[in-house]
């Protein structure tokens, strides 16, 4: 499958400090790829290098088939959408005026404004002045701004950080629809549920280095103890290993009607991160 992003052994050094070291990964076309890591791990630096806001010190980056020297060109910018902590809106203007500006800058049809506002659950609010919006509503307008031109590849830095669960779920639905239509999504998030639910593959970045990269389910399986946690009607908590010799025990609990609940012990992505790095993902 064709890659939307190819990163080969990149390094980024600020003065004497290395922020990113020997990072390599590929993002397949049409994939939702999650970059996970604690604050200061290098997520934003990585996104900035992929979007041309920062140059890499060493290594090779190819995005949408374009090499580093073409990243930042008008052709490149027309194909990508960005939502980052650097994204902002014109506070004195309305939602509509803000989106109209970017529609015209990206040469997108004006009918996209209504469509994208529906996607971010802001239909009917377009005449509101941005300065009067809540933080969550502003975040949704920023997302609409990033997607107004139907980009091939979207970089989303913590897209639902300021949203309540209802609006976050609405955004997730919109992102899935966008992805089903063929858009590749590169996302950074602290929200492990979001990463598990949305991402096809995730990578863990810690102190500027990649420590894991796989499908969320595979990572959870890999770091599982493969044991079953059983609760009986007597209130007993049992840990039974997933081995052939323990099959009879599970069978007996079921046969004697003692089993109240049984769970596998697959860790959450947050727990996987903790196991891999010894650090909390905060």
């Amino acid at each position, binding site marked *: 499958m064709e890659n939307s992003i190819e990163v080969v052994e990149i390094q980024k050094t600020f003065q004497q400090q290395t922020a990113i070291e020997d990072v390599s990964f590929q993002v397949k076309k049409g994939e939702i790829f999650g970059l996970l890591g604690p604050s200061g791990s290098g997520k934003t630096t990585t996104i900035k290098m992929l979007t041309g806001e920062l*140059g890499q010190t060493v290594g090779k980056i190819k995005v949408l088939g374009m090499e580093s020297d073409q990243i930042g060109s*008008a052709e490149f910018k027309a194909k990508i959408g960005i939502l980052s902590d650097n*994204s902002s809106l014109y506070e004195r*203007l309305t939602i509509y005026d803000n989106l109209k500006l*970017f529609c*015209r*800058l*990206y*040469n997108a049809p004006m009918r996209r404004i209504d469509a994208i506002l529906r996607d971010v659950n802001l239909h009917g609010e377009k005449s509101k002045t941005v300065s009067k919006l809540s933080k969550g509503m502003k975040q949704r307008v920023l997302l609409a701004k990033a997607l107004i031109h139907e980009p091939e590849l979207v970089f989303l830095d913590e897209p639902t950080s300021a949203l309540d669960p209802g609006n976050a779920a609405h955004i997730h639905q919109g992102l899935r629809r966008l992805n089903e239509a063929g858009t590749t999504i590169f996302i950074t998030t602290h929200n492990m549920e979001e990463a598990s639910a949305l991402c096809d593959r995730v990578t863990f970045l810690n102190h500027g280095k990649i420590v894991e990269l796989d499908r969320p389910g595979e990572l959870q399986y890999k770091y599982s103890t493969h044991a079953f946690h059983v609760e009986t009607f007597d209130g007993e908590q049992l840990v039974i290993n997933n081995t052939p010799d323990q099959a009879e025990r599970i069978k007996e609990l079921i046969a004697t009607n003692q089993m109240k609940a049984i769970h596998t012990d697959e860790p959450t992505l947050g727990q996987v991160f903790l196991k891999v790095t010894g650090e909390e993902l905060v």
Partner: protein
Amino acid sequence: MNVQRVSAIFEKDTKDFMKNTMLLMMPVVPIFLALLYKQMSGGEAFPTFLLYLVVGINLSTVTTAGMMTMMAEENEKKTLRGLIQSPASIVDILVGKSLVVGLMSLITLIVSLFIMGIEPLLNLKSILAIIFLFFFFLFLGIGIGLFSKSVAATSAYIMPVMLLFGFTPMFELLGISEDSIVIKFADTFPVMQAIELTDGNSWLPLGIIAIWVLGAGLFMYVCFKKTMTDD
């Protein structure tokens, strides 16, 4: 340059300008000064230096201060990054953003000079000098706006710019000897060169103003390039 992108930025800035009280008040100062001078003149024609003083005040308070405020606000609120991340080029962004301030400067300048009597400046040399001065003050405003990072910080820069480059003809009224190094240095400043161009026979002052324009343009370019990336 992409006309659609330039007009999109111009349209956005016009709407933003009309809702920005601080920017809307800027043209008041030079027009008020022109009215005051007219009142004080008793109907006599103004000397060239006084006409250029009003031109300098116009360009420093409307063009430079206006542009500085707009760019600093874009920089401070991080909206400039949104424009830079779009397919709009540096030229699209700068031309689009300069049009509103340019239009406002032109209207204010024409109104002020009509109040004072525009006739002495209706010649090729003076018109060229004013056009060059406009670009000098515009580039300076864009550069400082990008450099200063916040609207509040621009207030620290606007006064020196106004005093040095806008009010330069006032130096003659400070009673400093003409042989003084301060006056000799001030005479090389753009507005003083414009006075010399209008009153004299040489075209050399236009060349000197052009050097100031190039310097301001280079300053603006360096500041913009620095803003474009985080490197």
